[in-house]
């Protein structure tokens, strides 16, 4: 066991709107030293920090758009999101739920604030991650895993220190709810004040944590406030998180795919040629059809 040290603490960038409904801070790939190569297999991380939405009759969001070559993972902390895709998948995710969509060979989808939530207004907070697919799985059949909070396995820390919700991967021998194409660990640490958890992942995994609520002490040295991201080194295995005040922290760690990345907007493939093909297939309607 060797300590995995902090490489960098990244403050949230100036937010921008995705569609007209999601006010996000982008961390991956635009933050300094958090490009797709460094964060492999995590290729995009948008964080909608807690934001109060006024009531709106017309649900806001992002209209129909395609994806190919990766998975999108949406984790809801506050508020509700409704979504539909051209493979027939769809649903609503609310507080504590996760939507794990494997776009793979291609889907069209749209995502909006859920109608009743939109009408009432309220706090909205969520994370959207793109997890890259290994080359051999990029053109596999799209699928969708809607994971409600009850389905997410929970590990209760001793001494009422809090709990770990294991979305994917493994914590203390307990497995996560989502199936993945390459080794990915994704979990929410919900810690009581003073509560501490130690995470251990293979040293070569790309690893980081995002502080969603409260503030935490990482490796007993670094005080990290809300909405900040901590990038950990790809060296050493273990790191600790201690809640200075009641906290929620998203923990990410994945094995790099180490494959070439060609990215253009909503398509992430291995070569430029495959990107051209993706644009062509999308224009020809090969991703199916979805009403606006």
């Amino acid at each position, binding site marked *: 066991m060797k300590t995995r040290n902090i490489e960098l603490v990244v403050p949230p960038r100036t937010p921008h709107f995705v569609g007209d409904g999601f006010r996000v801070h982008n961390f991956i790939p635009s933050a300094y030293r958090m490009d797709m190569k460094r964060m492999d297999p995590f290729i995009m991380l948008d964080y909608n920090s807690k934001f109060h939405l006024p009531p709106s009759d017309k649900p806001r969001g992002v*209209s129909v*758009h*395609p994806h190919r070559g990766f998975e999108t993972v949406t984790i809801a902390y506050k508020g509700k999101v409704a979504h539909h895709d051209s493979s027939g998948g769809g649903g609503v995710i609310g507080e504590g739920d996760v939507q794990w969509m494997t776009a793979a060979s291609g889907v069209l989808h749209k995502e909006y604030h859920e109608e009743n939530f939109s009408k009432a207004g309220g706090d909205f907070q969520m994370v959207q991650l793109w997890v890259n697919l290994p080359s051999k799985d990029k053109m596999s059949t799209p699928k969708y895993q809607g994971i409600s909070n009850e389905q997410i396995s929970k590990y209760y820390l001793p001494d009422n220190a809090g709990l770990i919700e294991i979305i994917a991967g493994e914590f203390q021998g307990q497995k996560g709810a989502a199936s993945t194409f390459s080794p990915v660990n994704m979990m929410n640490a919900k810690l009581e004040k003073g509560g501490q958890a130690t995470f251990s992942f293979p040293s070569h995994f790309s690893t980081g944590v995002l502080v969603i609520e409260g503030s935490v002490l990482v490796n007993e040295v670094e005080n990290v406030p809300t909405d900040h991201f901590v990038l950990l080194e790809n060296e050493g295995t273990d790191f600790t998180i201690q809640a200075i005040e009641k906290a929620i922290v998203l923990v990410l760690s994945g094995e790099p795919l180490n494959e070439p990345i060609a990215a*253009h*907007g*909503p398509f992430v493939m291995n070569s430029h040629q495959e990107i*051209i093909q993706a*644009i*062509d297939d*999308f*224009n*020809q*309607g*090969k*991703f*199916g*059809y979805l*009403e*606006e």
Partner: protein
Amino acid sequence: MDSPFLKYLSQTVHVKQEHLPLLDELISRRQLKKNDVLLTAGQVCKHMFFVEEGLLRLFSTDENGKEHIVQFASENWFMSERGSLYFGTPSEFSIDVLEDSQLVVFDQEFIEKASSISAEFRTYNEYLLQNHIRHLQKRINLLIGASAEQRYIEFINLYADLTLRIPQWMIASYLGITPESLSRVRKGLSRQNFK
């Protein structure tokens, strides 16, 4: 030396290496934000733009306030209201910015000077004009006689990645059809091609 415009002059226009710095001195660059306006109908167009990064559109507005999009320009495209620029008459069209953009800006004088410095530039400028006329004739023909589906297929052949960058109503406006018709065309294509 690696600005997209100089790369374009060197690789596409085949301007000689020794002429590149001379042409580079005559241009300026502008960073623009989404929704910025470069030309408003009624003004005389003084500039031509080369898009290094971003997206522009040329459009007219009818008496009911409805916008009709005539042309888009993304990376490595030129954009101007050529009639107004050359003849000095008020423009019937406006140009605005659809995505944050980095543009090379030059005027009619640049075209004349650059043409006297570089024979390759002069030849290419004429090619661009001829190509523009060819494109406009084709577009007129499609607008008069082609089905919505044919127009859409021409559009995606010309501007493949714009379908990902602009809203559907803008594509519909460019094609001279309603957004509902465009939706039907796309649905029809996916029926034929979605396996």
